[in-house]
């Protein structure tokens, strides 16, 4: 395997880590299966692409976070105010986002960013590894922010919300607000992942986000099977390692000659295997006890 392939895998792993960290908030902390992800990832791609074309790659990153957060707010309001079940709410927002994303990209299914300067351009002097460094600095920053946020009083309330809603309401916390906040943050980071993805790939495609939810889930679940610690810092590390590992597996599969069309099948299988392995382990333990 050549260096470029390894580098490419690590870089993509880092980008998916950004997205998975977002999904970690909705899936692990809030305990909500949020399908908005597929749409908000593309939303991030689209917003970032349009800003990059107009030579504003950094602003694109920030705006895509805000756009993603807004998408999260919409899903959150659908769940809490309109009382649509979480799965369906996510699907509804995702579907609506398809049209919005098309609009953002000027009604064309893909936008090329070839020869546009991106967030990586400024750091080219760092050599071959410049993209990797930029991506992992972003990942690190997000980890630091999340690690701080989740240990604040507000973060504590957010975590409790996914743990026991009754108890949170009894502590005079508005669970609806917490859900909206959590989903906004989650989708903000997902969109930011998409934004970096578009600039890295130098194109934005209307279907970039398809299957991102599964990729994120795979990363989280795989990471958590490696690192079984409850402390937030370890969980964040687990998500990042899971994303990189997951991308690694896909790269190896591609190198071994797997047609790229089969990647999604492999992703889904990987999630099933990771979940099955934890269930089987638990069952074995139970058998020993009885």
């Amino acid at each position: 395997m050549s260096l470029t392939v390894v580098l490419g895998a690590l870089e993509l792993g880092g980008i998916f880590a950004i997205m998975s960290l977002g999904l970690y908030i909705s899936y692990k902390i809030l305990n909500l299966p949020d399908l908005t992800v597929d749409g908000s990832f593309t939303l991030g791609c689209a917003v970032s692409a349009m800003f990059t074309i107009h030579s504003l790659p950094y602003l694109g990153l920030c705006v895509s976070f805000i756009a993603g957060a807004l998408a999260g707010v919409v899903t959150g309001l659908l769940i809490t105010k309109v009382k649509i079940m979480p799965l369906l709410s996510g699907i509804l927002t995702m579907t609506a986002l398809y049209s919005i994303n098309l609009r953002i990209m000027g009604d064309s299914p893909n936008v090329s960013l070839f020869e546009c300067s991106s967030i990586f351009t400024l750091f080219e002097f760092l050599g071959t590894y410049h993209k990797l460094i930029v991506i992992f600095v972003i990942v690190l920053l997000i980890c630091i922010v999340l690690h701080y946020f989740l240990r604040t009083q507000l973060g504590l309330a957010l975590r409790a919300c996914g743990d026991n809603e009754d108890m949170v309401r009894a502590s005079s916390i508005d669970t609806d607000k917490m859900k909206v906040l959590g989903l906004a943050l989650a989708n903000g980071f997902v969109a930011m992942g998409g934004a970096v993805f578009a600039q890295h790939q130098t194109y934005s495609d209307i279907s970039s986000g398809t299957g991102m939810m599964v990729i994120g889930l795979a990363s989280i679940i795989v990471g958590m099977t490696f690192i079984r610690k409850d402390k937030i810092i370890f969980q964040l590390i687990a998500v990042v390692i899971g994303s990189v590992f997951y991308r690694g597996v896909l790269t190896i599969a591609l190198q071994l000659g797997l047609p790229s069309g089969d990647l999604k099948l492999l992703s889904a299988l990987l999630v099933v295997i990771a979940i099955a392995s934890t269930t089987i382990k638990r069952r074995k333990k139970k058998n020993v006890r009885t």
Partner: protein
Amino acid sequence: MLELNNVTVIFNEGTVNEKVALSHVNLHLEKGDFVTIIGSNGAGKSTLFQSISGAVELTEGQVILNGDDITSYPEYQRSRYIGRLFQDPLKGTAPSMTIEENLSLASQRGKHFSLALFSHKHKEQYREALKELDLGLEDRLETKVGTLSGGQRQALTLLMATYVTPQLLLLDEHTAALDPKTAQKVLEMSSHLIEEHNITTLMITHNMEDALKYGNKTMIMKDGQIIAMIEGEERKRMTVDELIHLYSSSTKEYNDRILLKQ
């Protein structure tokens, strides 16, 4: 203190499944009142609690707490003033968080949730409070609540519900799922805390002895109505047998629990 005016709750109104859970209930409590509530299943005891705490919407009537009409307040806002314990000991605590984190959330009740970092500076306070429970929890602040027993969790919930002294405490058969010894202990603890802080309390129980032993008033409910309120001298002189007699003659119901008591 607490006033219920003409409180009516009807589930599935206008359908074949229509059920009147509370029918024109009027109740007036003074500060420091500790009322025990008895009544068979479906008498509306839990619905009464839910309508006070905001978990169900009233079809008619008003809930007034300390002169404030809280009828339209959402549940989470009411919990600033109202502490609650449920029959299910798992309901009151967050299992995957530590005892300290749970207590920290409880101690923030009614306050604004800020972006200040979670600190350990209240550890000593929590430890002192836990010591009073006498369950050995004071040295286990870092323990996940999910690993505690039902009794321990219910005791912790009690502590959390009263950590910031509520104006009103609702105990919904909070010892029913515990073994007799732990149940007695949690009940003693509750009564101790209630007296110490002079908290107005409503407690649902199925135990006739407890219904007389604790509190200063006993109320019997049936079919969504309060059919008897025993207080003062009458209550002081009343024996458990008399209460059982009154209960069964007024509700015309004999259930096993009551028969066994006789």
